[in-house]
């Protein structure tokens, strides 16, 4: 793995460790401050586990006032702070720094209010994404964004990353599903943006914070919108004899005016890998598999299914199966959700990429990736959120072979550059973090980056909050990035990744 450039370590802070830990122990319960080597080890990395750093100390405050006091102290003493939610992020956004405090929000784990009349839930940031749905589903409601790690990832982390999921074409990402946040700025100022009403007036500061990867403030409370569960949800599993025909069908579904709840594509390599792994019963003769999920009222869904069937037949689908029960619908998804571990079972290591492309460019992107796969002599499997254009190629390699590792890095970088060339972006949902930092200049010029840095400076003038993330520090488009998983030892192997 390439050497990772991080902000210059401030030795004067390292030398003051004892004093800093003592002070932090006064700002929160001393049990909430961790500073011994064995206590720090679990916090050395997030889900981009290839990079590790030992933080100066970990502090786990219990309420907003404590967060404010801790940040105020760090601000006055010029101590860097790295915020962390559940640590499931795939881009290294919560990677600690040796001279920084790691501020964990794990103790913020309570739902504060469920307000059905205003269709919202007020929650602390450490509550898991799925925890919110679990709290309201008995009344027929749910929280829409569903990142694949929803079992473990925290809602605060979702706000930091603007997390999506498979349903984001129809239901949007985190930014479209939150109503308000309480946040603490680096100097300790507590602020509130939005609340239970729609669209705050003035600058949309909530919109700015959402997806800012912990660089502008620490979120201590989130108000999320909840939706009524659709009456009927059905899925269709459709095989195609070629990438082009399947890609065309997906495009035609969208252009015909259908907005599917979810639409996923898998290529042949992934169909085989997942079917071997999870026995999902996928059509193994197909070159491309399309899963389309439709929701609404009964007649609405029936009508949509009829249209989807007609479009797929017109595009020469080789097989078409409709779910007739909830159990069957979930079985259609089983293989797709096992995509990551299935690749892990096929090779010692894999890299997961995360680019977005215009939907119509799918065939072009997949053909390009195929060519690159031949060029680098490395196998690749592709899954694609066809609804919203988010592509996740999984490159398989052996990390013990230095030459393969180098080639994988080059391959991955070329894929992301291809996404940009086709009109897309370098990250659809995993965030920039440290992973794609040096690729930012593929998308943005100096003016664009300077404007963003200028916002950062206006809200964190000393650059103490999560420094070294998102924005290039090497000033070159380095060949970094991707999620590296060794011997299928993902940091969270039990979480479905899609």
């Amino acid at each position: 793995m390439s050497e990772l450039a991080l902000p210059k370590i401030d030795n004067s802070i390292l030398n003051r460790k004892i004093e800093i830990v003592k002070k932090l122990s006064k700002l929160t319960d001393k049990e909430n401050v961790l500073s011994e080597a064995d206590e720090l080890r679990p916090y050395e990395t997030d889900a981009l586990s290839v990079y590790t750093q030992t933080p100066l100390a970990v502090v786990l405050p219990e309420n907003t006032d404590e967060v404010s006091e801790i940040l105020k102290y760090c601000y006055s003493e010029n101590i860097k702070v790295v915020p962390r939610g559940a640590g499931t992020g795939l881009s290294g956004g919560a990677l600690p720094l040796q001279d920084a405090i790691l501020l964990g929000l794990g103790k913020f784990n309570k739902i504060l209010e469920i307000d059905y009349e205003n269709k919202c839930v007020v929650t602390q940031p450490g509550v898991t994404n799925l925890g919110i749905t679990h709290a309201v589903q008995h009344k027929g409601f749910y929280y829409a964004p569903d990142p694949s790690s929803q079992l473990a990832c925290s809602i605060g982390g979702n706000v930091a990353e603007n997390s999506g999921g498979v349903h984001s074409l129809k239901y949007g990402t985190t930014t479209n599903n939150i109503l308000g946040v309480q946040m603490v700025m680096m100097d300790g100022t507590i602020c509130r943006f939005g609340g239970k009403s729609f669209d705050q007036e003035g600058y949309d500061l909530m919109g700015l914070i959402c997806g800012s990867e912990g660089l502008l403030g620490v979120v201590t409370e989130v108000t999320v919108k909840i939706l009524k569960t659709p009456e009927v949800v059905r899925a269709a599993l459709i095989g195609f004899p070629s990438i082009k025909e399947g890609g065309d069908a997906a495009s035609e579904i969208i252009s015909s005016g259908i907005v599917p709840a979810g639409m996923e594509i898998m290529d042949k390599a992934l169909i085989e890998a997942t079917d071997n792994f999870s026995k999902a019963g996928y059509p193994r003769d197909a070159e491309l598999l399309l899963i389309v999920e439709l929701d609404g009222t009964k007649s609405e869904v029936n009508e949509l299914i009829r249209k989807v069937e007609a479009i797929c037949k017109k595009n020469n689908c080789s097989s078409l199966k409709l779910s007739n029960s909830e159990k069957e619908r979930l079985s259609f998804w089983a293989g797709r959700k096992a995509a990551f571990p299935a690749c892990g079972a096929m090779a010692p290591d894999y890299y997961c990429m995360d680019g977005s492309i215009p939907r119509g460019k799918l065939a072009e992107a997949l053909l390009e990736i195929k060519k690159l796969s031949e060029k680098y002599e490395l196998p690749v499997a592709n899954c694609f959120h066809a609804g919203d254009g988010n592509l996740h190629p999984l490159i398989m390699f052996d990390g013990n072979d230095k030459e393969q590792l180098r080639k994988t890095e080059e391959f991955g970088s070329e894929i992301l550059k291809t996404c940009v060339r086709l009109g897309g972006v370098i990250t659809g949902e995993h965030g920039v973090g440290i992973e794609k930092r040096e690729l930012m200049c593929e998308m943005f010029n100096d003016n664009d980056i300077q404007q963003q840095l200028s916002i950062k400076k206006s809200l964190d003038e000393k650059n103490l909050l999560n420094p070294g993330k998102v924005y290039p520090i090497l000033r070159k488009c380095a060949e970094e990035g991707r999620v590296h998983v060794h011997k299928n030892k993902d940091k969270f192997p039990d979480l479905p990744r899609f």
Partner: protein
Amino acid sequence: MSTKIKINSQIFQDSNNVYYPKDEVEVSDLIRELYKKDSPTEIIGNNSKSFIGNKTQSANTTSLSKISGIIDYRPEELYIKVKACTPINEIEKILSENSQELAFEPIDFGYIKDGKSNKGTIAGYLSCNYAGSRRFKVGSVRDHVLGFKGVNGKGDIIKSGGTVVKNVTGYDLSKLIAGSFGTLVALTEITLKVLPKKDSSTTVAIYPNNFEQIYDLFNKLSSSSSEISGAVFIPEQSNDKDFSGKRNTVFKFNDLQSNVSFLAFRVEGDKISIEEKINNLKKELKLNNSDISTLDVYQSEPFWEKINNLEVFEKTKHNLIRMVIPPANGSKLCKYLENNHNYFVDWCGSLFWIEVNSKKEEKIKNLKKMANDFGGYLTVIKTSSEYDYGEPIFTVDKVRLMISRKVKQSFDPKRILNPGKMYRGV
């Protein structure tokens, strides 16, 4: 206030000394020069909404109206990229030809301003971020912006976002630009998410007896799996003859009893699913024995146009307030407004349009206090000629004002773009 300055650039100026840059390079040249000379400018599009917000006190006026035209429309990719001052009408026309639309349903502010349609430009619309009746279901304008290009207060051309819906690359500046009233960047290019137009629409009107019943209905409507895409309450205002006359004329439809208070909700989709949803809702709302009216598509579509044109407040000479609150407090607000103000409720109980017929700003102050207490906010959209701006027209607290100042500084350090349009000193 700055005095007139001489600009070196060869940018077209009309007889009123308004600058008309023709592309982003000219916008950049102009602003760079104004930046060097510390000379602020008002930024306008087609002037359809320039009455909203504080009056800017600047030596120059820059019209972006020549920066107009569709750059790239991809129906199958669900996006349209346009030059910033493309008229909304032009965008809606081309989308409609492809059975698509701007789902956030742009409000036509022309009626309250001059009594006739003038939807203005997409840049103006994005700068206000005021979505129409479908907002509670589909999101606001800010939720439909995928990316933009523009010029900041230093004259730098900047961009953010792209054309894809899933994009977490860098700060999401599109959100920040929405509702910023041209105080952060002079927009030159906007990419919007577009969605398929629904085949048809039907509106059902109910005639409830009291505010509790109205809000109970709003709550049931927003809690149903049979999704609605609009819900308004139009109260009867018997104490104001002029207004009730206007109201009855605006909502004169064959199948609607427009002379009494009514709640109306809209269901969109194909004909079969509309029928199914309305039947479900009738059961859920227990409407089977109630007096209800059904407006077919030929009445339903113009009905919602009238709502989104704010036609009941056509050419109002009074202050017009836009208040947004969490719906659970709506019935209390209705009780307060009853017999005091002309108003109607949109967004399934969250959005109030209130006419304040008074020279005293005290009444606006009271309403603002209520908005704050209820967890919402208000904006004085249109001011009467007597309004002296003693009561700020936007709602902002001290901390947000402090942060807004910092954000403004990061885009526009010398306050060249629309200074004071939103907040004094910002």
